[in-house]
C-alpha cells in the first residue's frame, strides 16, 4: 500500500473547503475619486487547507478505502466480513471526488488467498489485505483506510449529531430495520446502520445497498460542510468521532489534513457509483461477477480521481 506521509507532512497547507479560490475584488478608482480615498474592497472568502499536492502531481488523487465490517458489538472488526467497501478518490485541485462501491459478493482475486468473494479479504488478512485486493482489482493505489463495525458506525454517526440523508425510495425491511419514507431525514446511528444494511427491500439487491452506502458517505460530506460553515472547529469534533470509532492507518495530523481536504471538495462534484456486474454462482456460492465495463471506470479515475 502506498502511503504519502511525507507528502502530507511536507504539505500541511492548502485545503477544504480550504480551497476556495478567492480574489480581491476592488472597484478601480475613478478619475474623479480622491487619490487617497480607498475604494470599497470586499475580500472574498479564501480557503487554504493543509494539503498541498507535489509539483507535477496536482491531479493525482488521494484515495481512501472505507471498510464496513459486519462485526457485531464486542466482536473484533477485522475477524469478520467486509460487507461495505468503498474506494473514495479525491481530487483537491478539481474540487471533486468519486465514491466507488464494490458489492460484497464481488468474486475477485484476493492476494495470497485466491478467487473469493471480496468481503472475505478482511477476514483473511485485515484492512491491509482488503486494500491490496482493491489495488489489484482496480490498479489504483490506496493511500488510507478506515475500518469500522456496526457499533463503531452507530457511535460515530451519533457523535456528530446524526446525518441528514435523502432516502431515495421508501424502505420497509425487517431484516435490517430500515423503515423509511422517501425524502430527506436526519438519521441517528441506528437508522444510519439500517439504511446502509438494507439489501432486501431495494430495487437491485446488493448493488442498491452499495449505492445507498455511497449516498450515506456523500451525505456525511455535505453534513461536514454545513457543520464547518457554522463552526470551523466542528472539524475537530468530527475527527475525534472518527478516530475513536474506527481503525485507520492515518495519524491524527494526517486525518486533520484529510478532513480539511474534504472541506475543499464541492459536494456537487462528487460522483457516487457502484462497479457494474451481474449475479451468478461459483460452486454453491451466490456471487457477483464484475463486468468488463468496470475497467473503464478504473481507468477513468486512476489518474485524476474523478469521472469524466
Amino acid at each position: 500500500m502506498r502511503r504519502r506521509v511525507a507528502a502530507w507532512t511536507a504539505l500541511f497547507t492548502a485545503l477544504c473547503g480550504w480551497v476556495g479560490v478567492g480574489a480581491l475584488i476592488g472597484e478601480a478608482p475613478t478619475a474623479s475619486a480622491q487619490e487617497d480615498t480607498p475604494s470599497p474592497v470586499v475580500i472574498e472568502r479564501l480557503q487554504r487547507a493543509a494539503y498541498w499536492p507535489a509539483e507535477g502531481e496536482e491531479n493525482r488523487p488521494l484515495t481512501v478505502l472505507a471498510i464496513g465490517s459486519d462485526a457485531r458489538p464486542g466482536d473484533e472488526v477485522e475477524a469478520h466480513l467486509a460487507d461495505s467497501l468503498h474506494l473514495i478518490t479525491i481530487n483537491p485541485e478539481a474540487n471533486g471526488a468519486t465514491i466507488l462501491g464494490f458489492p460484497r459478493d464481488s468474486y475477485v482475486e484476493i492476494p495470497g488467498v485466491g478467487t473469493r468473494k471480496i468481503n472475505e479479504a478482511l477476514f483473511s488478512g485485515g484492512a491491509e489485505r482488503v486494500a491490496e485486493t482493491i489495488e489489484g482489482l482496480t490498479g489504483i493505489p490506496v493511500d488510507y483506510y478506515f475500518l469500522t463495525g456496526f457499533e463503531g458506525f452507530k457511535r460515530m454517526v451519533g457523535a456528530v449529531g446524526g446525518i441528514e440523508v435523502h432516502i431515495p425510495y421508501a424502505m420497509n425491511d425487517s431484516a435490517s430495520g430500515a423503515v423509511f419514507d422517501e425524502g430527506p431525514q436526519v438519521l441517528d446511528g441506528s437508522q444510519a446502520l439500517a439504511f446502509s444494511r438494507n439489501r432486501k427491500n431495494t430495487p437491485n439487491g446488493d448493488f442498491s445497498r452499495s449505492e445507498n452506502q455511497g449516498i450515506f458517505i456523500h451525505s456525511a460530506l455535505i453534513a461536514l460542510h454545513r457543520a464547518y460553515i457554522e463552526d470551523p472547529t466542528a472539524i475537530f469534533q468530527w475527527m475525534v468521532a472518527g478516530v475513536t470509532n474506527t481503525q485507520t492507518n492515518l495519524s491524527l495530523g494526517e486525518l486533520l489534513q484529510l478532513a480539511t481536504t474534504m472541506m475543499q471538495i464541492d459536494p456537487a462534484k462528487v460522483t457516487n457509483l457502484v462497479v457494474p456486474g451481474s449475479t451468478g454462482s461459483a460452486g454453491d456460492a451466490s456471487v457477483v461477477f464484475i463486468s468488463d465495463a468496470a475497467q473503464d471506470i478504473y481507468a477513468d479515475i486512476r489518474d485524476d480521481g474523478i469521472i469524466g
Partner: protein
Amino acid sequence: MLSILALAAIGGGAFVLLRGGGEGGGGGEERPPADLAWEVRFTKVVAVDEKPPQGRVDSATEEISALMDELYTTAFVDPARWGGGGFPDLDSYFSGPAAQRAVEDLEQLTLGSLAPRVARVDPGASRLNISVLVDEDSGMTAAIARAAFRADARTKGGEKFKIFHRGSYLMEQVDGGWRITGYDIEGEINPSAGVGEPAPGPSAEATP
C-alpha cells in the same frame, strides 16, 4: 497680545503639519502604532481521550493569542512592518507550504496594495475564539483560532475608512511553537462606513 496668540497658533499648526500628525494631516504617522488587544472569548478543548490540565490549555491560549497579535499587527496595525506593501515578515507566522501560499495571498491576508497609502490603523473591539485538538497522549497537536478584527483607519490624505477582517486559522505545533498551516479568511475595507460603528460585514460571532 492677539498677535502673540496668532503667532503661537500658527506656530503650533505648523508644528502639527510638519510632524504629520493630527486629523486630516497629509504626512506620515509618527505616533506609535496602537495596541491590538484581542478579547479572547473562550478556548474550547476537543480531546481524543482525556483533556490536559487547565494550565497547559491556558498556556496554549496565550501562545496562540500572541501569534495572532503578531500576525494582525504585521498585517494591519503597524506601518513599520508593512514594508511598503510587501509585508516581508508575514510568512514567518506560517509553516511549510502555507508560508509560500501566504506570500501569494497578501491581498487577502493584509492591507495589501493599499498599505502605502495608509497612515494609521486603530484596532477596535476584536475578538478571538480558540479551539485546540488534543491527541490520545494529551498533546495539543492542532488548533483553530477564529479572529474577528475591526479597525478604524486613515489614509495619508486624511480619508477615514474601516477595516473588518475575519479569519479561521488552522495551526500546528512546529518546532515547539504554533504556526499557521491553513486559513479561511474574508473581509471588507469600507471607506463609506464612517468611523465609530462597526463596519457591516460577515458575522463575527460564529457559534461556539
